[in-house]
């Protein structure tokens, strides 16, 4: 199955490990790029970029331009896939956190009739009902539950 992993780049290492496991299970997997261009056009790791973005001001144009490019490219990856896997690890004191960007990707996947898998439990967030509304399949951490 063609799978696009969605989630926060804060979990880059975990996501790459999940990608590897899915590939061993014979899935074709896309994630976000591991590097992005900084202000001077030099490649930096997404972890480094994430650190910069976390403290960036609203007028740091290049930072938000990169985010915009990433969001839009990832939409195309969702469209390419048969299913998305939301890598929803604990974040901001929320178990199985899902952020706004990922929620948009889940909405798009739902519209395009893709399967939506959540790696971990559905988070207790103000928008839990919207998450439930796109009918995700909760894996409880077990990737072998992903089936054609």
């Amino acid at each position: 199955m063609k799978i696009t992993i969605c989630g926060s780049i804060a979990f880059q290492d975990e996501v790459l490990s999940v990608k590897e496991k899915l590939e061993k299970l014979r899935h074709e997997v896309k994630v976000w790029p591991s590097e992005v261009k900084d202000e001077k056009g030099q490649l930096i790791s997404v972890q480094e970029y994430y650190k910069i973005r976390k403290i960036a001001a609203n007028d740091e144009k290049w930072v938000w331009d990169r985010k915009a490019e990433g969001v839009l490219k990832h939409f195309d990856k969702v469209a390419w896939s048969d299913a998305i896997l939301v890598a929803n690890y604990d974040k901001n004191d929320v178990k199985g956190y899902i952020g706004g960007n990922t929620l948009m990707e889940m909405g798009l996947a739902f519209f395009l009739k893709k399967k939506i898998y959540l790696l971990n439990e559905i988070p207790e967030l103000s928008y839990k009902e919207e998450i439930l509304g796109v009918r995700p399949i909760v894996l409880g951490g077990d990737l072998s539950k992903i089936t054609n």
Partner: protein
Amino acid sequence: MKIFICGSMHFAKEMLEAQKKLKEFGHIVEVPCDTRLFIDKPDMTTDNHEEDSKHCIDNDIIRKSFNSIAENDAILVLNYPKDGVNGYIGASGLMEIGLAYFLKKKIFLLYSPPPVKETKYSHEIFIMQPVILNGDLSLIS
């Protein structure tokens, strides 16, 4: 222009008012399929999350709204102040804006989205390049 009105169903009455105004400007305007239901049953509220979730799932509300976005040229998000947040846009509105962007529809917001300090995903909303009307529906063209 064919316009689909989105936003919290807390503003169902305002949706019908905006529909009427936009029709007067010559637009073809669709509102969410459950707009009339929210007006006719004042005890129905989006604040009762469990009841609202059941309503949305039982009636496939999210998919119906998404299909309406696909069938129109533009979306208009009625983001009136709610819960003390100016320019409130809920999670459904966020998903609708994302889909409209992917489908290359025009995105109109009645007001500016909330500041990022209050609503973190306002960054994502700005990325979708909405046209902000500052309350003036006549700016839709």
